[in-house]
Structure formats: structure tokens, C-alpha cells
């Protein structure tokens, strides 16, 4: 056993349990009690695609620096699942700790000379104090939260406060849960030297922040954007976005007197129908959206092509999971970048937004509707399971009451009547965006929407030139989109020849990796793209850096492909760092990857490292 240095507010706990045993409540309780003590904290849930009985892990990183990604190391493991003991014990960093249920001692299996093993007879303690099989299982998990409270010096009063909020309507549950907490707490204080060198200490770094998951934040964005139609087909990990929207809409959009609902929530028969409903509703002037994941996007391809060519606003949230095919539904990836960008047959390109965290999910969700209606085209918001389903600490979401939806170029009755004749696809403003009308306005405003060849007047055509006029205008619209979508975030303060380039949920790990690299004397610039099409500065960044590491969470370097296809950068200037295990990328992975590549460059071309 190696001595451990004191580490206050800077360590990672991992809890290994079995799904369906109530461990989620215990883990949320732990995380929130740390958050409420003013200490930045990160939580990641690694769960199986299963209802009950399979291994599940939860990682809590206490991070005084406010990092939001995995560090890559585990300092304290709570091993509650005998089935995964062997791998759980291996994962603990040297000098770390392992807590396990010693009702059934396993000295041989859990032996490691360089860590401290702390046995707590959780099952026995709970069996003695609680009745009923289910209660005992649930309480065993709450009990380990009590053990951790003692070991890490968590504030018991905070825990009680949280339980009181959670069980406001069932006060008897507060008492039974507190009893379990106390059992674990007292046992640990009696048998171990508490607190451990790993411990928390009150800070004041979480004021003005919330702990929220990206799907909830995106649902709020839809609510605030004024979306009235939500159509979907259930699929992990997007379902909670729709659940959240329904919850918020039920609370804020139902007339208390009449029971009238200012929204419609449509559970479709499949993803094809879901996106069809969205297209139909948006065509008819309501703000509508759907949420899905990769398999759903595959199915929606046909309709995406229609919405692109017939120019119907469409908003789709793709909460990416691991592919290909069904893949690993409960693990995270950025595997739909190419699929989303070019979905459907023929020449199609779609506006994509890449939020990096729940905060951006909120703002980009609202922005997606404005962009879709302004550009009369599909907008795909590419979140992922890590952002969507994990609670992230982020700045308070703010809403500007002056906001009014940008409904784009829609002619009303009076405007139509002033026209000599209305034509649907004429580029009258020279920005590639034509004016549209909504059904029910006036016979003069009527037009025919079709996915078949049409001319700029809205009539069917098979004429080569007429067809091309429309297709070429769509390119001008794409150029307009380039100006309207969120720009890349570029931090070139390091003034380095080396750049890190990434998107979405890699952001947290990259920020931390940059700090680590800087401490090792390697300063790097950073660009995070936030939308497709890429704004002009994306290409400029790539061209102006000798070497760029493109960091993404898929096997086939999809962002790198997009960058080489859509900017003038030379392919050889881009190095890929690819993380596609299904777990969220860690800062350690990036640091190691950059260092290894730079060493390799030096070995291969000692004098000309940057030109590969």
C-alpha cells in the first residue's frame, strides 16, 4: 500500500452496481450534495441497454478546477457488483481506494498491494435494519452513500436536505433513507480513519450554475422557441428529450380552466412518420421538432431529401449513440457527422449544429428553429448520449424576454394581395431564400410543394435548365447559411503552430488537455466548430496552422473528412485522434495522443516535424 497525498476536491469516484437497484438515486444524491457544497463536479453514467440485472457504473469527478470531462483515472471505486469485481479492482489508480460489501468477504479477489481496500458489510447492516427484499436492495445502495459521506467528509445536512426535496410528498421515505445513510456513515467512522486524504471541502464555485442534462436543456430550448408540435418514435438516448418537453409543456402550456393544450405531442409509428409529421406541421406554419438517434436518422433520410429540395423547415435532434446498426444504444459516440451532413440521395447538404454541453443544447435548440425557418431547410442538432443523458454543471440558462421567433420569409395575406402573382421559388432577395406562404391564406398564395423536379415558379418540370436554376439557387442559400450559423470558437492565444480541432462533447476534455499540455511546455491553439456549413474562419484556422489534431469520437475520422471535403486544407496537415470506445473521451486520451504523435513526428522528420 502506497501512501496517498491529500487530495482535496480533486479526485474521481466510480461506483459499480447492478442496474435496476436504485443506485441512480444514491449517485445523484452524492453528486448533488457535492455540487450544493459549492464544489464543481462531473457525473457520467455508463449503463446497459437493459431494464434490470446488468452491470452499470457511475463516475463522479470532484474537480475544483471545474473540468467537465473524464480524467481517465479512478481514485476510489465503490464495488457493489461481485460480477465485475475483477475489472473494477484493476481500474483503481495506485494509491487509491476500493470500498466493497464485505458481508461476503473476498480477500483474494480484491487483493492489490498498491490500494486500500475498505470492506463494509452493507448487506448485513441493511438486512438487520430493513424489511423486504426490494427495500433492502435499495437501502444497501443508499447505505454506500453514507459510507462515502464519512470517507469524503460530505455534508450530511445537505444530504438530508436533498432527500427532503426528492421525497417532499413521501416524508417517511426521507427518514428511511436517512437511516440507511446513517448506518453507512457510522460504520465508516467507527472502522476507518475518516475522512480519507481524498476529501471534499466547501467551495463557492457553483453559484450561478445548474446541474442539468443536455436533453432536458434542449427540451427547454424547444419550449422557449415556441415549438407546438413534437413528434417522435422512442429511441435511446433521445427519449428523455421528448419526455422533458412533455413535462414542461404539461406544466406551462395547459389552460388551467379549459384544459386546452397549446401543443401536440405525437408518438409516431416510426421515425419516418415522426419526421413526416414535423415536415407537415412546419410546412403549415407550426414550429415542430423530433428527437432521435442514428438509426432514426438512417430512416429519415428520404424525408430529409424532400425537406431539403422542397424547402420545408425541419428541426431534428440527433442524440448520437454508438453505431453502426443498433450498435451500443447506451454508449456515446459522434458517429453521425457524415450521415447528418449529407443525408439522402442526390445533391443534399444539411445545416448541422454541434452543441458541446447542455448550455449550448438550450440555446442551439432555440436557434435551430430560427435557422430552419429562415433558411427553409432541415436543421439537425447533433448532440450525443454523453451530453444528452448525463448531468453537467453549466452556467445558468438565461432567456431574453425580448426574443421573438424568426419565422423567416412568410408572406401574409395582405402582402400576397399586393403582388401581381406569387411564385414560390423565385430568388427575389438574391440570398437564395425564396418567399413562402401558408395554407389557408388566399387562393392567390396557393402553391404546390413537391419533391419532384420543379422550376422557380413552383411548377413541375423536367427541363434541364429550369431544374438547374433551382438547384443552383439552393447553393446560394447554402452560402447564406454559412453566414447565419454559429461560428467556430477559436482560441489562438497560444500562438502555436499546432492546433486542436474538434466539436461537440469533446470540448471539456480538450480544455483540460490544453492545460495539461501547456504545463508540459506544449502550447496549442484550439478551434471548436459549432455548425455545418463551416464558417470561413474554419478553413483559415486549418490553413494557418502547420499541424492540426482533429479530435473526435468515431472510428472513421468523420469530422476530418468533412473538413477536407468542405475547406481548402491539405489532408496531410490533419492528424486524427479518434476515440470510439463508447465511453466519453477523457483528457488523458488527448494528452497521450498529442504527445505520442509529436514524438513520432520528431523521430520521423526531426527537422521538419510539421509537414507530414
Amino acid at each position, binding site marked *: 500500500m502506497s501512501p496517498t497525498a491529500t487530495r482535496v476536491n480533486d479526485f474521481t469516484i466510480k461506483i459499480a452496481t447492478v442496474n435496476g437497484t436504485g443506485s441512480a438515486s444514491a449517485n445523484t444524491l452524492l453528486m448533488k450534495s457535492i455540487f450544493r457544497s459549492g464544489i464543481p463536479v462531473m457525473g457520467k453514467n455508463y449503463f446497459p441497454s437493459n431494464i434490470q440485472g446488468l452491470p452499470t457504473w457511475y463516475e463522479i469527478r470532484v474537480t475544483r478546477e471545474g473540468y467537465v470531462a473524464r480524467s481517465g483515472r479512478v481514485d476510489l471505486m465503490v464495488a457493489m457488483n461481485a460480477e465485475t469485481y475483477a475489472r473494477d479492482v484493476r481500474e483503481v489508480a495506485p494509491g487509491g481506494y476500493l470500498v466493497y460489501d464485505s458481508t461476503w468477504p473476498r480477500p483474494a479477489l480484491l487483493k492489490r498491494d498498491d490500494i486500500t481496500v475498505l470492506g463494509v458489510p452493507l448487506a448485513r447492516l441493511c438486512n438487520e435494519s430493513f424489511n423486504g427484499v426490494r427495500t433492502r436492495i435499495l437501502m444497501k445502495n443508499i447505505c454506500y452513500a453514507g459510507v462515502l459521506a464519512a470517507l469524503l467528509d460530505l455534508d450530511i445536512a445537505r444530504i438530508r436536505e436533498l432527500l427532503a426535496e426528492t421525497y417532499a410528498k413521501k416524508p417517511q421515505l426521507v427518514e428511511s433513507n436517512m437511516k440507511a445513510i446513517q448506518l453507512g456513515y457510522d460504520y465508516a467512522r467507527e472502522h476507518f480513519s475518516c475522512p480519507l486524504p481524498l476529501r471534499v471541502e466547501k467551495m463557492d464555485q457553483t453559484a450561478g450554475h445548474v446541474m442539468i442534462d443536455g436533453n432536458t436543456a434542449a427540451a427547454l430550448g424547444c419550449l*422557449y422557441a415556441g415549438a407546438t408540435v413534437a413528434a417522435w418514435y422512442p429511441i435511446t438516448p433521445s427519449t428523455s428529450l421528448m419526455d422533458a418537453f412533455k413535462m414542461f409543456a404539461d406544466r406551462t402550456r395547459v389552460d388551467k380552466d379549459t384544459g386546452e393544450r397549446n401543443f*401536440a405531442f405525437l408518438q409516431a409509428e416510426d421515425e419516418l*412518420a415522426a*419526421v413526416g409529421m414535423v415536415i*407537415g406541421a412546419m410546412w403549415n406554419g407550426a414550429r415542430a421538432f423530433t428527437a432521435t438517434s442514428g438509426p432514426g436518422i438512417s430512416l429519415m433520410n428520404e424525408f430529409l431529401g424532400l425537406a431539403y429540395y422542397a424547402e420545408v423547415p425541419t428541426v431534428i435532434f440527433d442524440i448520437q449513440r454508438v453505431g453502426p446498426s443498433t450498435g451500443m444504444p447506451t454508449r456515446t459516440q459522434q458517429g453521425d457527422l457524415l450521415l447528418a451532413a449529407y443525408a439522402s440521395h442526390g445533391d443534399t447538404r444539411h445545416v448541422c449544429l454541434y452543441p458541446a454541453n447542455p448550455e449550448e443544447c438550450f440555446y442551439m435548440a432555440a436557434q435551430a428553429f430560427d435557422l430552419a425557418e429562415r433558411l427553409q431547410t432541415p436543421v439537425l442538432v447533433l448532440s450525443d448520449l454523453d451530453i444528452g443523458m448525463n448531468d453537467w454543471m453549466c452556467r445558468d440558462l438565461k432567456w431574453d424576454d425580448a426574443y421573438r421567433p424568426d419565422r423567416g420569409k412568410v408572406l401574409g395575406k395582405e402582402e400576397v394581395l399586393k403582388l401581381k402573382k406569387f411564385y414560390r421559388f423565385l430568388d427575389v432577395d438574391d440570398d437564395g431564400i425564396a418567399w413562402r406562404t*401558408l395554407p389557408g391564406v*388566399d*387562393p392567390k398564395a396557393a402553391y404546390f*410543394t413537391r419533391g419532384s423536379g420543379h422550376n422557380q415558379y413552383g411548377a413541375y418540370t423536367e427541363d434541364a435548365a429550369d431544374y438547374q436554376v433551382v438547384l443552383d439557387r439552393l447553393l446560394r442559400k447554402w452560402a447564406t447559411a454559412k453566414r447565419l450559423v454559429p461560428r467556430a470558437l477559436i482560441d489562438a492565444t497560444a500562438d502555436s503552430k499546432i492546433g486542436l480541432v474538434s466539436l461537440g462533447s469533446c470540448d471539456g476534455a480538450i480544455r483540460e488537455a490544453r492545460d495539461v499540455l501547456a504545463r508540459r511546455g506544449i502550447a496549442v491553439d484550439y478551434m471548436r466548430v459549432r455548425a455545418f456549413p463551416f464558417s470561413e474562419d474554419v478553413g483559415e484556422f486549418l490553413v494557418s496552422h502547420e499541424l492540426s489534431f482533429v479530435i473526435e469520437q468515431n472510428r472513421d475520422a468523420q469530422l476530418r473528412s468533412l473538413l477536407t471535403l468542405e475547406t481548402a486544407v491539405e489532408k496531410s496537415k490533419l492528424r486524427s485522434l479518434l476515440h470510439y470506445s463508447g465511453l466519453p473521451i477523457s483528457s488523458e486520451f488527448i494528452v497521450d495522443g498529442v504527445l505520442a504523435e509529436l514524438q513520432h513526428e520528431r523521430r520521423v522528420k526531426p527537422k521538419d516535424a510539421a509537414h507530414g
Partner: protein
Amino acid sequence: MTFIAKPKVAHPSLPRNPLGLTRRDYEGALSTLCAGCGHDSITAAIVEASWGLALEPQNVVKLSGIGCSSKTTAYFVSGGHGFNSVHGRMPSIAMGANVANRNLSYIGVSGDGDTLSIGLGQFCHAIRRNLDMLYIIENNGVYGLTKGQFSASADIGTRAKKGETNVQPPIDPVLLAMTLGASFVARSFSGDKRQLVPLIQAGLKHRGFALIDVLSPCVTFNDHEGSTKSYAYTREHYEPAVQADFVPLEREISVEYREGEAVPVVMHDGSRIVLRKLDAGYDPTNRATASAHIQERMKAGEYLTGLLFLDETAQHEFHQVNSTPARPLNSLPYEALSPGSKGLEKILSRYR
């Protein structure tokens, strides 16, 4: 879908409806379908029915999928918006559109390929949701645009133009709709305008999903001897069971109907349909016996036609179930939709 705009010349002597519009005002672009196509007769019936009901043209929304039938939405009511979507997916577009604005009349035109093969799922679910629309199937038993393959409505034993005999049993949209709980189910023949026009009117007035399966012979690929969907065969084997006469709100029932033979049904807006039983043993208000009867006749090679089933009391139209406000969702002011910054603070208190 046509290259040629139809000239709109209204002779002063043309009769006008209460809106002052002539039948011309309910026409659309020139049809590009084959001469003699049954679908064109259905288009004409829709024009007649819409004119007769004095629908505001801009309040008509025309929706379709892909195929010969789906082209026809361009051929009627040019003053209404049209949406020619993708193959078999019209019901979902219609659903979304209808949810956004409940105050318009939605007419979907589909074919047997579009509805019974690629779009069977969406068709079934539109019925299940009781989407408020008129859904017309222009049923000819073949794929026209791809040149004469059997569709899922082709009867066993029917012969293709090239001689092949169909061996797979058909899917019947009428029986299917009855099973799925549709509240308005009709069958007609493109060649029987007297039956079809009032059916379309009744379907448009029905609150909820109204299906009219219209046998509509394909003159090019399925009008030969040996085909069970030819004009000749259809004329011989279609059997009107229930005549539906549509009586507008403002008009009295003037025709004398014999006791026990005619059943007036009041639609949700107060207009009426008088159901006249031409087949004494048939009850169009009893789902179980009606289904059995249709099936029996079908076994005998006869197609029962008319308004085969109607339940105007069914209260599960989508918007009723959803409690949608009378004001369409697409025109609710933003203020009614956003809880504002104060509301957000309240919501976020849960996440601290």
C-alpha cells in the same frame, strides 16, 4: 403535375355557388394522365363536390404520395396549397399539417401501391389516430408509372396485361379500415359520379378519418379481359349497397324516403347525410355485421359500394382527444407559448 397551365375562362352563364365561384374555380392544372384514366373522373368528382359544398379554395389542403393517383392533387382546387410528398408517407405529412391547423379541409389522394404496400403502416396509423381528413384511394390494382406490376389490391386470378396471373391474396382497404376502427368507410367506382360526389361531400364533412376506396380502372395496364379491375369487370361486379345523399346545413330534406329505408345522420356541423339502403340486409351502422356482409359479397366476387360504415358519434378525433384549442397551433401568439425568463428561473430551481 403538368407542364401546361389550364386556361381559366368562365362563361357568364356558368352556375355559381354561394361564394360566387364556378366549377372552374375548383379545377387545377391540366391532367397528364392517360386519356380515359379513372383517376380523372375522380378529380372531376372532387371538383364537383368542393364546388357544391362551397369550400373556400384556400382552405383546402391537398396531399399525396407518389404514383399516378398522387399526381392528381395538382388537377383540382388550384386555390389550395398542395403537397406531393414521398411514396407512402402522405399520412404523416397530413398528420403534421392537420395538427398545425385544424381549421382547414384536408384531402389526401393516394393509390393502391402508395397506400397498401409502401404506405400501409402510415395508412393504418392515420386511422388509429383518427386524423381528420378525407383519404381517397384511387384503386386500380396495378403500378402504372412503372408499367403494370400487380399491386397489393390485385385479386387472386386476375391477369396482367402481359399475361401473368396474380396468385397472392389482396389487401382490402375497406375491411382493413373497418378492423382498425375507422368511423367513415366507403367504396365507390370512378365511373359512378352520382354515387361518388355525395360520398366525397360526406367524407369532407365527417369529423375524423374518412376513407373512400374508389375503384378506378387503369386504361393502359389493367383494362383488358381477365383483369378484375377493368371498367367492364367493375361495372358488372360492383353492387351499390348504401346510397349516401348529402344534405347541406341550409337545405331541408326534400326527397321522400320510404320508412325504414332511409336513415338521416347529422354531421358535426349540422349538415346531414341520408343513408339509403339499397341492400335490405345491410346495416351501415353496425361494424360487425357490415364487415361480415362486405366479406361475404367479396367471396362471391361482388364489390359492395356506397357509404359502407358510418359512426358519426365517435368522439376520438385527434384534436378532441388532444384538447387542442380552437385557435390553430400555428397561429398561437408567442406570448402564449413561452414561460419567459421568470418562468425559466422557476424551472431551473429543480436543477440546483
